[in-house]
């Protein structure tokens, strides 16, 4: 039987309005979630969906309005002090540390907040700096680091306490492709080293979530709308064919396609430089594509490429949330 690392029951968090008369804003709405030991669990959602609120509650930074949240079997409200030694967190774009300290000193300082003996801390810091590619900058002062280097340092800081459960909130933000790949590999290895460890990851990079996560929960407007393995989530859109289409630049014709019978959802982007428009559309059946091609011809639009795609997490996300992950609310 699997042991639950994180468990929430009917977890709700409301924020008061700015003025007394303003209604409360529900950031989390009766969330039920179980994350198991050894799991790399992804949390996906658009901005303002409730991801950070959930992480804040699980890391004991925020109290739930109602419901329950357990981390490593301890209640976040009543047993926060028992949770703290077991967890750590890395957030994208965080500005932890002090400019006057070097990279090593900064990570050492945080290791001391977890009571790690100096010798152990030093060994871990050396190893972590090697992994994130900061070994040559170990003695560089923090204020001299670039954004990417700083994020690498944050990454090392999060793991220096060797937590049982780590919360990674957009941890790859600001990292270059190579560094992000290295960090992803490190996360996987770190988890494999000890089956009692757990990672909860939020990310905007769906490919990353697909590659890394054992299970993924999609959250929207404070509610979990789906929770399963990436492959099972993709089954949600498997029956509906997805086409990727590139045409010469469209003007006002897009609405016509959106409203066309058989088009379930459609996202598009214009490429001004190339004067083209790219679509991704999910159709109720394959035959609808013939109708679309006919309409394109009627409008004298040239097809540059047409491809039938395998469903991706992005397709699942659009189906469940109604927009791309990076799109803001209109």
């Amino acid at each position: 039987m699997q042991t639950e690392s994180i468990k929430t029951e009917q977890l709700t968090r409301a924020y008061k309005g700015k003025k007394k008369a303003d209604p409360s804003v529900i950031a989390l709405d009766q969330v039920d979630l179980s994350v198991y030991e050894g799991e790399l669990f992804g949390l996906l959602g658009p901005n303002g969906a409730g991801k950070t609120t959930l992480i804040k509650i699980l890391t004991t930074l925020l109290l739930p309005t109602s419901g329950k949240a357990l981390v490593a079997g301890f209640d976040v409200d009543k047993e926060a002090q028992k949770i703290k030694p077991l967890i750590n967190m890395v957030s994208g774009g965080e500005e932890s540390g002090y400019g006057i300290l070097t990279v090593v000193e900064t990570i050492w300082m945080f290791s001391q907040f977890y009571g790690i003996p100096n010798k152990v801390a030093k060994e871990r810091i050396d190893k972590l700096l090697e992994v994130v590619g900061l070994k040559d900058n170990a003695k560089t002062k923090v204020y001299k680091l670039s954004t990417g280097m700083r994020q690498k340092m944050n990454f090392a800081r999060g793991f220096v306490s060797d937590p049982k459960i780590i919360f990674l909130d957009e941890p790859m933000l600001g990292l270059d492709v190579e560094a992000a790949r290295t960090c992803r590999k490190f996360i996987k290895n770190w988890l494999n080293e000890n089956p009692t460890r757990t990672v909860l990851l939020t990310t905007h990079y769906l490919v990353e979530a697909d590659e890394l996560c054992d299970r993924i929960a999609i959250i929207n407007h404070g509610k979990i709308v789906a929770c399963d393995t990436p492959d099972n989530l993709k089954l949600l859109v498997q029956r509906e064919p997805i086409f990727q289409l590139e045409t010469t630049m469209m003007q006002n014709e897009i609405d016509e396609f959106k409203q066309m019978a058989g088009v379930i959802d459609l996202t598009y982007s214009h490429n001004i430089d190339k004067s083209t428009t790219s679509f991704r559309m999910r159709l109720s059946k394959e035959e609808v594509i013939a109708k679309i091609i006919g309409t394109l011809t009627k409008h004298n639009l040239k097809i540059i490429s047409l491809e039938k795609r395998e469903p991706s997490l992005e397709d699942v996300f659009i189906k469940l949330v109604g927009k791309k992950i990076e799109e803001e609310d209109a």
Partner: protein
Amino acid sequence: MRDSIILNLRAVWARAYVRIVGANREPSWIIAETLLPLFSLSAYVFLYKAIDAPAQFIGFVILGGTMTAYWIAILWGMAAQFYWEKTSGQFALYLIAPMSRMAILMGMAVGGFFMTTIRAVATLIIGCLIFRVEFQVVSWVYLILIFLLSMVALYGMGMMFASLFLLWGREVQHLTNLLQEPIYLFSGFYFPVKCLGTWVSSFASLIPLTLGLDGMRQCLFGQAKAMGFMSFKLEVLILLGMDIVFLYLAGKMHRIMEYKGKKEGTLTTRWQ
């Protein structure tokens, strides 16, 4: 219990280290922090000389100028510190770590005390040499005792402010400014506080530096005893009481602030 003590001692040292290292790595601050205060201090010295005030008044000013460093350090380096750390996102990392936040405040106090003492000692030495201050030490033991007790009470007060300032959020800079200047008057930084009258002096004694300065002046300048607000032995007792009360309140306030912040969701909201 033992593990908890070790954890918190490590946290105290780690946080103090930032300030101690900072003092060594940017030595340019020593010039700014020691020479500049001498200008404002000199103005008072020349004023007393111009009106032919008793010689010990010059010593009063130098001592007051020396202790100014601690008051500024408390306001900007202790009281406002958690707020600055909240805006940078660092405070959230303190909160999720297992050590006590009081250990962090203690670390700030230890590191800040070290850094401020360099400035204070430099001001004291240079001031004494330039203006040829003559001391008539009544009691070294009481002098050191009063200084240390004042510091504990003062930093305890800084810890209390750290929690309050965190809740007041963006107003913190105005509050810090508001507290900075009036205290120079009410605590008698450049004159014996007794001049303000019993009621004002009693009220001003809520600031540990008021009694600390008054007591240290009495211990350092024999003739100053007559100008003392109260007996320095009594001041030792009051300061001791302040130490206990302020440290207790600091811990209590911090727990209340943390609970309230977690409940309302304001604890980690940047720029709030």
